[in-house]
């Protein structure tokens, strides 16, 4: 092999290696960038990106069923954690969690049952919700309250809304 061919071989190899590296790095970044931009565009239209007003008063009125309103203790002031202005954790216990949602399209409460002892946990959580909000059972029935079960607590009962047990629309857990 002649000297010039050796040099050409080395140059070609180095150029290919450099171009290959640049191409791989650039194409990956471009793909990641495009993908992330696309997802960000979608997520920015999620309602949580729209701001809601966080009340500073001790009590607030929240919309209830049939156009009524119910006065409750300010959830933001009684929270154990405020994830953001839309999602407020009122109670966080190993057996259950109670949350308050404040979205542009409405406000609601959620009791998530995490313990397989569903009935007793439901009773305890419902009592705590009433106590936390400073309302009566009748008023609670007017609020938008969902009661759901974690799939770790019960595979059968998970995925449904059972409502408050003492309200007309309350449903029993499956046997």
């Amino acid at each position, binding site marked *: 092999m002649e000297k010039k061919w050796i040099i050409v*071989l080395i140059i070609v190899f180095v150029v290919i290696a450099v171009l290959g590296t640049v191409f791989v790095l650039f194409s990956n970044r471009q793909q990641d960038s495009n993908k992330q931009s696309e997802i960000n565009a979608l997520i920015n239209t*999620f*309602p949580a990106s729209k701001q809601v007003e966080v009340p500073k008063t001790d009590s607030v009125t929240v919309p209830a069923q049939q156009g009524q309103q119910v006065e409750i203790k300010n959830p933001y002031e009684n929270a154990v954690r405020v994830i953001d202005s839309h999602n407020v954790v009122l109670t966080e216990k190993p057996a259950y969690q109670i949350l308050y949602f404040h*979205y542009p399209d409405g406000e*609601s409460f959620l009791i*998530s049952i995490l*313990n397989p002892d569903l009935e007793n946990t439901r009773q305890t959580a419902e009592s705590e919700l009433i106590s936390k909000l400073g309302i009566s059972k009748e008023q609670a029935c007017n609020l938008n309250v969902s009661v759901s079960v974690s*799939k*770790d607590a019960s*595979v059968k009962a998970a995925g449904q809304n059972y409502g408050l047990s003492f309200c007309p629309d309350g449903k029993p857990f499956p046997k």
Partner: protein
Amino acid sequence: MNTKIKKITLPILGLFAFLWIFSYQVALAETCSEKNGICRVYYSGSDVCESDEQADSTLTGCPSGENCCVSTTSPPTPTTTTGGAFDYVPMEKIPGFSVSGSFPDYILTVYKFGIWSVGIAALLMIMVGGFMYITSAGNNASMEKAKGIIFDSVVGILLVLTAYLILYVINPELVKIKLISGTINTGGGGSVGIGSTAQLGTGSCSTITAAGNPCTVENLQSAFGSQAETASAICNRESAGGNPNIGSGSDRCQGNGVDNFCANPANSQYCTGNSPKKPSVSWGLFQINLTNHTVGGFPCGNAFSSQYTASNHNCSITNETLYKQCVDAAKNPQNNLAAAVAEQKSGGWGRWGACYDCNICKK
């Protein structure tokens, strides 16, 4: 020259032979998942299994603190899944590569490490040859030696790269490792990346209709489009009604040091289950598995010793600060949704156990 080529070729052929051997079926001991069972966390004061299930302590595969529950009613037909479930815990890390608990992934990582090693060595030898050639000063013996080194290096690289290329061109399946590890109930603990224990067909799912919930069909419409109803049902089931604050009670790291982490009262919010509590790895609306996702810009996989998978629960927390940042980020609905959209786009709804629970995904 022929001797040198043989020296390079033989190890490569050996490596490929090794990979081929693992493409055949490997017999495994009977596990909980093979019996269509489901590993459930034991809560004190209550039965660990559902009324139509029976605990079977003879079956292996459930982590400490969990029992295997086997359905007594008509069990779903198990499906055979390739790759993934093989109770293998890598004892040694491979420099420059993250290693999951999947054995095929480990072999592939070794293979990639081999290619990189050959490439780096060849580059080094080309430089050495080039230097020798330049400094040969007309000495024929040195020039020939330098040429030989450069030529051998180029041949070595070509052989390594073309071996993969030739096999790939013939059939891409030839360069994939298929480890058939018995039968895996895709619904029973067969979570892949996201999701957790579930039981095929016995669950129920409904979309969330109450206004003012992060997982209503309307709220998910912009992110999932025509798939918003499916997204709502999966979010409902995965997060107990659209709870962004929830950590999985079954997807939990069980490796070294997690008990000490959970014994600290300041960390109680990160630990789930009973007897004893363990740090949860799946969080938020869509139960994003932090061990293999970037959430809110945080590279959450770096907070763990290894990925949490259906077969590897032996992960531990190596960076507590990052882990806590990731949990907080995953609790944010927008971050969680972003990760879920990316996951759904790349792997479909089958990545969530809830998809099988509600028969949205078919076997």
